[in-house]
C-alpha cells in the first residue's frame, strides 16, 4: 500500500488514508503547499470510478484554503460509482474535504456541488459523510 497523508503539512498530522498499491506508481512527490490564500474556487473533474491516488496526494498537500467559497466535483457518470463510494480513495477525498470545510471561513458552511448528478436520484447514505458534518452538499443535474 502507498500511504498518503492528509493534514496540515506544517504540523505533519497523522496518516489517514491508505491508497491502493501500484507497482508503476509515478505519483508526484508531495510538496507542502501550506496555504492557497487567494483560492476561491476548486473544481475536481473525475471520469473514472475512483479519485486517483495522484489527486488525493495533490489535494492533501494543500494545507489550507481559507478564502475557498465553492468546491465542485464534476463527474460524467455518477451512476458508475454507486457501489464503490466507500472504498479508500473516496474516503481519502472525504477526509480532505472535511478538513478544508472545517477551516473554511465562508458563512453558513462550505458548499460542495456534485455536478452532473442524475436527476431524481438522492445522495447515497454515507457518501462523503464526514464532509457533511461541516459542509453542505448541493447537486447540479446534467
Amino acid at each position, binding site marked *: 500500500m502507498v500511504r498518503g497523508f492528509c493534514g496540515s503539512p506544517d504540523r505533519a498530522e497523522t496518516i489517514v488514508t491508505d491508497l*491502493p498499491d*501500484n507497482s*508503476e506508481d*509515478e505519483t*508526484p*512527490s*508531495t*510538496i507542502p*503547499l*501550506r*496555504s*492557497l*490564500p*487567494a*483560492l*476561491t*474556487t*476548486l*473544481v*475536481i*473533474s*473525475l*471520469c*473514472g*470510478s*475512483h*479519485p*486517483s*491516488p*495522484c*489527486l488525493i*496526494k*495533490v*489535494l492533501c*498537500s494543500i494545507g489550507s484554503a481559507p478564502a475557498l467559497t465553492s468546491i465542485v466535483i464534476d463527474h460524467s457518470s455518477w451512476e458508475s460509482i454507486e457501489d464503490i463510494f466507500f472504498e479508500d*480513495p473516496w474516503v481519502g477525498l472525504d477526509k480532505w474535504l472535511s478538513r478544508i470545510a472545517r477551516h473554511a471561513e465562508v458563512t453558513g458552511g462550505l458548499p460542495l456541488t456534485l455536478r452532473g448528478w442524475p436527476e431524481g436520484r438522492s445522495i447515497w447514505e454515507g457518501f462523503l459523510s464526514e464532509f457533511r458534518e461541516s459542509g453542505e452538499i448541493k447537486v447540479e443535474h446534467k
Partner: protein
Amino acid sequence: MDSIPQELIDAIIENVPKSSLLSCSLVAKRWRRKSQRRAFDTISFFFETEVNRWCTDFPHNSDVIPSYVRHLKIEEITSWAEPALLSRMLESLSSLTTLSMHETEIPEELPGLISRGEFGNGITTLYLGFQCYTYATMTSMILSFPNLKELCVEFCEVAPEGPLPTHPVTPQRRPLNSLELRGWWGVAGEALTKSRLTSSRLSLDVEITGIMQLLLASSETLVELKLYGAWFLRVPRPSRDDSN
C-alpha cells in the same frame, strides 16, 4: 441603399451565416469592410499548401485582409517542408491575438523570431496540442510571446533531454490569466515549471509531472483551480474476481 445607417448594416452582417459573408461583401462598398473583417476573423489551415497559397495571395505586410485575422488555427501540419512559411504568414497577421497549433510542428527558428519582436507581439492566447516537442522548442515557444495571458498545452509529449532555449528569457514574467495543462505523459509540466510561469487560474491533469512545482509557483495568487483526477488513465481497476 445609401440611406441605410451603417449600424444597421453592421448588425445584419453580424447575424448572417458565415457562408453568406462573401455575398455580403459584394453588396456595396459600405458592406465590404465589415463582411471581410468577420469572414477573416478566424482562419484555419490543414495543409502546408494552403499556408503557401495564403502567403502568395497576400505577399505584402500592408495587405488589408491579413490585418483582419485575429485567430489562427493550424492543424495536422506535423512537419513543415518549408519552415519559413509559418513565419511569413505570422508576419503578415498584424492583429493576431490567438495562435492555435494542433498536431503541428513548431519550426525551429520561429520562437527566436517572435522573441526578437519581429511579429507576434499581440498574441495573448496560445494553444499547443497533440504533438511531440523537444524541451527547448516548447519552452522557447511559450516564453517567446511577451504578452501571453492564456496558455493551453494539451497532450504534448516533451523529450526530457535537449538544449536550453538559446534566446533571452524574461526572468520575471507577469502571471498568466489562465494556464491549462492536460495529458499526463512526457515532462511538459517540468518544462513549464522551468519556464517560471504562474497563473491565477490553473487547470491541471493531476498525472502530469511537475504539477506540484506549478502549484507551488502560483500558490500566492491562485484564484481558481481545476484538477482532472482520472483514475483510469494509469491504473486499470481490478475486476471483482481479481480482488478476491
